């Protein structure tokens, strides 16, 4: 059976979530993995909405990292602690294990230095939470099969204006983790209506969420 998690909205709607709903959904899934009062680093934090949400719902002590000027300004407006640096160059200013969780929500696909970033994340935090759109989702495969690059709620850009630079799938991400010796502690996948997917997530999952860490 399908379930719409989290939020427990009861009977799941088959309608695809809009951008705002998707954001709230993303936040709620991530927040479910963050214990109260933790120290959290959010990479590619946008205008700080997630950190603000985590602060309000979980009492976390959070810092955001963002490169975009307008989004940094958004963080300052939101009263969120933010550091304007380029994650692609690493996190050298951050001490080892200085955070409980590092989060990268819907941003890993927009960065080039994937391996380096994953390595840095697991250096500065005990555990990382990663969410990304699964490029191998059924609808995306259908678009490609029909000869066009997929455009959807989870991949809302045209090929010529997308900020995404790395197009990868659930299977790709797990293969990379295996190669880098990164332990996958938990995975959640959802279709574009926000229903949890258990059967063949690489085909049926539109959004993927992971808790990853170094083997203990």
């Amino acid at each position, binding site marked *: 059976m399908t379930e719409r998690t989290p939020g427990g909205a009861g009977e799941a709607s088959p309608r695809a979530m809009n951008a705002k709903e998707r954001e709230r959904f993303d936040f709620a899934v991530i927040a479910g993995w963050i214990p109260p009062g933790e120290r959290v680093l959010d990479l590619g934090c946008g205008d700080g909405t997630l950190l603000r949400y985590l602060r309000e719902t979980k009492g976390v002590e959070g810092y955001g990292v963002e490169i975009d*000027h307008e989004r*940094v*300004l958004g963080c*300052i*407006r939101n009263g969120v602690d933010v*550091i304007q*640096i380029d994650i692609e160059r690493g996190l050298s*200013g951050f001490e080892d294990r200085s955070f409980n969780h590092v989060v990268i929500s819907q941003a890993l696909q927009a960065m080039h230095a994937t391996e380096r970033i994953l390595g840095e994340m697991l250096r500065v935090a005990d555990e990382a939470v990663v969410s990304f759109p699964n490029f191998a989702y059924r609808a995306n495969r259908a678009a490609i099969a029909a000869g066009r690059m997929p455009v959807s709620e989870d991949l809302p850009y045209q090929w010529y204006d997308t900020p995404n630079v790395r197009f990868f799938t659930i299977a790709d991400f797990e293969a990379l983790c295996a190669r880098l010796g990164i332990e996958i502690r938990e995975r959640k996948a959802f279709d574009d209506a926000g229903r949890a997917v258990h059967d063949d997530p690489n085909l049926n999952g539109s959004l993927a969420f992971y808790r990853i860490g170094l083997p203990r």
Partner: protein
Amino acid sequence: MSQENSAGALGFVVPQRVRFDAPLTLKSGAALPGFELVYETYGTLNAARTNAVLVCHALSGSHHVAGAYAEDPNNVGWWDNLVGPGKPLDTNKFFVVGVNNLGGCYGSTGPLSLNPQTGKRYGADFPLVTVEDWVAAQARLADHLGVDVWAAVLGGSLGGMQALEWSLQFPERIRHAMVIASAPKLSAQNIAFNEVARQAILSDPDFHGGHYAERGVVPVRGLRLARMIGHITYLSDDQMGEKFGRQLRHGTHKFSYDVDFEVESYLRYQGDKFAGFFDANTYLMMTKALDYFDPAYDYDGKLAAALARAKAKFLVASFSTDWRFSPARSREIVFALLENRRHVAYAEIDCDAGHDSFLLDDAHYHAVMRAYLENIEV
């Protein structure tokens, strides 16, 4: 307001003066028997006294932060684009204080003042004052104004160092520190530039060991050179290129040592202007205050250990083309604060004007300042 054009929205302002009679022991060990500070205020201190903001000046700045003077309407404050009603540092919300630092040459006690022990001008006998001493003196001004806790202390460059120092010397008396285009200490290159500037003054035959005022002369050549070298470091290469390029003053090469290129003309103008009003001893002292500032010095060079006592929330901002106080120097402050789990927002602003960017009204820069200041509760 009828004076809008010359005086800005703030209107005409009036400098004030306060004397402190208790001696002040300086970081060097020397003591001043008492001292005076000149200052200006804008806006109104609220009943709870929670809306006071101190603006600290940099090397050549003064207490005249904003507004203009009735008797000199073209003399507009050095940060007037930031401070005033409806401006990012909104005087409808905040009570803003500008002060000329101890040792300055705009009216506060300094080398040009009379030494009560000799009846003559201090000149070179005025003791070296440091950023720490300035903050200690500013704290007396805060007491005088009835300000127990600043809502914020802010400044650019050397002014940013004072904001940082406030958070260390009086952690309970500052809620927000806004450190703009600054650094936790100077680099060897920074000190080297300061040394060249000092040598220009010290080697001027009119310097007379710092007692030039007694002889009725001013080491203008030294001051002029000092300001010229300073100016080169405040601007970016790109901006100089854009502003002057290789433009010729007379349209042709003159094959002489007179002004050929426009940039030479600009530097000479800036140097002359500065030498016409700034005191050489103050300039020497200011550069030493910059050189000495290093809160990590007593902590084995560990900035994070030095900042452990800070309690304020921070805004740190740097400018992409500032090579005198580069973004990397601001990041040192940011990461030291982070290590101490302090609240900090850090913005690295794209602006092509080099170190002087902090004085300009770049739209994004001012939006950052406005956003941060709007969130300060009073």
